[in-house]
């Protein structure tokens, strides 16, 4: 009983803090201390996330709030990750946005808007993760998109507006398909569970997935795949992603690439579990593998011709989401374990990279890679952060991404060896493309147009240390955790 109360309280804090924080930040406006308040709210959310994780670790999966919320090993680890990265991003954003304002890129009203929407976005993502209702999952996903659309266009430059419009329209269209998929899911569920809100609860659906009509669910999955796949940024539905992730302020790029893509993939995986349970075949997995491989290859080759630093790393996000989608599609304990680990380390490494990229581009006031030079000498932390981040993201040992990619490759060789060369090709091309570019940015003399600045140390260091630590040694807790999640996703 006490456990139930604790869980409900934790959930209330976890979701309540960002929501209330958003309202307060909207009212407070751009006063002194607004950025600190943003950090404080994110910190509180993170602490609540940890608290919830401890509860779940001790008690196992549980329902709360009249079955409206459902917490298990899969979503709680993502909730902790989400709240952690949003906290570090808030820390990074304080100094970064301050500089943007000094430079006159945004003013009073837009700063206020930025802070309020940042918290609302975190709320939407956490709601996505924790809700048990597949319909509410869709609503929260749409809310996450809507709250970031105007952040992408925050600078009001023609390219930023274009990027945001594309994001709004393409994701709107995509996610509409997912709603149709959800309607079909409800149609199938209603025949087994009866009408009413309970028929859309994931736990109920999962319990009866064997008796849901397979033809309807297969059709539903096609729509869900296209819908949530658009938000994951899978090729060929990825057109909006490089624009949206590169035109907005860098903290937003970090959370979009590091967090929102994960959330969309989470939704897709939850749907896949239901569909597989109903059809008893591996068709949903095959579709995901196809999208995954295509994304890896197309993104890897697109990486080669990028000139804008943020665009390059956005394509890298497509590639990594492709890897994770592929691994979830592949299924089996090893691949699923690898995919879960990959979501974690990619999120940490990619947001760290965006932090350093943000600093690097502020030092040169450009995002063009040809004009960024001499980072090692200009600001060692930024230089080394970018270099090590790049090494981590291309899958060099001893970083965590090496471990997850190694697991996924091993599983591929065992389960469908014919696909291994494609996977390796993608990884190799991405390696060459990124390292070549990054090397020329970090080395060399300091160019004349470079300005000196203080960088935000803590977030970058924290993320890189974590990625390194996971690469060297996966703690028992995490191991246990993923094992439980793998069981759930079988």
């Amino acid at each position, binding site marked *: 009983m006490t456990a139930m109360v604790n869980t409900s309280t934790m959930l209330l804090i976890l979701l309540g803090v960002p929501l209330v924080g958003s309202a307060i930040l909207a009212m407070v406006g751009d006063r002194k201390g607004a950025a600190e308040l943003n950090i404080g709210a994110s910190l509180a959310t993170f602490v609540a996330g940890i608290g919830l994780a401890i509860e779940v670790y001790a008690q196992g999966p549980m329902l709360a709030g009249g079955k409206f919320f459902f917490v298990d090993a899969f979503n709680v680890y993502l909730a902790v990750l989400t709240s952690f990265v949003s906290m570090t991003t808030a820390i990074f954003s304080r100094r970064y946005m301050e500089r943007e304002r000094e430079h006159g890129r945004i003013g009073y009203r837009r700063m206020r808007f930025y802070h309020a929407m940042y918290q609302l976005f975190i709320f939407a993502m956490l709601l996505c993760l924790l809700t048990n209702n597949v319909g509410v999952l869709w609503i929260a996903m749409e809310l996450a998109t809507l709250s970031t659309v105007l952040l992408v266009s925050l600078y009001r430059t023609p390219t930023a507006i274009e990027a945001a419009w594309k994001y*709004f329209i393409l994701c709107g269209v995509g996610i509409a398909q997912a709603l149709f998929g959800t309607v079909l899911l409800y149609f199938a569920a209603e025949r087994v569970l009866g009408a009413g809100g309970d028929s859309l609860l994931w736990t109920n659906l999962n319990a009866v997935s064997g008796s849901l009509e397979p033809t309807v669910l297969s059709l539903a999955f096609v729509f869900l795949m296209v819908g949530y796949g658009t938000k994951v940024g899978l090729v060929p539905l990825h057109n909006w992603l490089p624009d949206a992730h590169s035109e907005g302020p860098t903290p937003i790029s970090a959370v979009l690439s590091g967090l929102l893509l994960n959330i969309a993939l989470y939704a897709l995986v939850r749907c896949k579990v239901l569909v597989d349970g109903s059809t008893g075949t591996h068709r949903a997995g095959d579709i995901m593998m196809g999208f995954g491989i295509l994304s890896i290859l197309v993104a890897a080759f697109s990486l080669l011709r990028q000139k804008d630093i943020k665009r390059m790393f956005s394509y890298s996000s497509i590639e990594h989401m492709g890897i994770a989608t592929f691994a979830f599609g592949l299924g089996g304990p090893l691949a699923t374990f690898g995919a879960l680990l990959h979501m974690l380390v990619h999120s940490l490494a990619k947001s760290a990279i965006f932090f350093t990229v943000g600093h690097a581009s502020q030092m040169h006031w450009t995002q063009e890679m040809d004009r960024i030079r001499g980072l090692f000498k200009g600001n060692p932390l930024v230089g080394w952060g970018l270099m090590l981040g790049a090494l981590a993201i291309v899958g060099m040992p001893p970083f965590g991404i090496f471990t997850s990619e190694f697991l996924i490759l091993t599983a591929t060789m065992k389960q469908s060896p014919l696909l291994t060369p494609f996977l390796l090709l993608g990884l190799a091309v991405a390696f060459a493309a990124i390292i070549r570019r990054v090397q020329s940015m970090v080395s060399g003399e300091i160019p004349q147009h470079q300005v000196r600045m203080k960088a935000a140390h803590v977030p970058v260091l924290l993320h890189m240390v974590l990625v390194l630590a996971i690469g060297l040694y996966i703690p028992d807790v995490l191991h246990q955790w993923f094992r439980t999640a793998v069981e759930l996703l079988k």
Partner: protein
Amino acid sequence: MDMMTAAHINSLLAAMVLLTAFGMLVQKRIYGLIHLFTWQGLFLSLNTAVVGYVASQHHLYISSVLTLALKVIALPYILHVLIHRLKIHKEVETVVNIPTTMLIGLALVVLSYHLTSPIRELSTLITRSTLAIALATVMIGLLMMITRRHAVTQIIGFLAMENGLFFAATSATYGMPLVVELGVALDMLIAAFIFGIFFFHIHTTFDSLDVEQMARLKEDE
């Protein structure tokens, strides 16, 4: 009202929804588009009420009123105000290849019937035959967004798609659970404010709402 009459009314309204969708596909004038969109919302709302009455699903009355308020009153009003403020009410869009677009639209209807045929066989609801129309409305909205180049038109296409989705929910399942419908309506309302803001941004930045001009973010070859 017996079952047969209700089924007939339902089919008639479904036909009207599809007809307005086709109308939007080729309508060049912005005001004309908004009127068609309003009509579509009205048919949708009536249909929901009829289904609610026949199937005695009382929560459908709430959705019906919600649809009326949102899609027949609020959204058209917001669009009117925006268009008035932006002074673009006289604009006529050049729409190319009307016959081709219509043919593709027809093909989409056929495709929708094909895709939904397994579901029609499973369903026992009186509304089941309209599911194909609902999917067709979604697809025509999508087609409209692809073929048109005006920001306002694209948004109306987007809203028409959402109408189709709502219609799908009432015809396949007698409506989604209320909490979901309310949430979707809320999202739509937020989206309406966002595209409102967008219209102004695009208009001031590009001096027109033609999205064709927004082509700077192409991949460098």
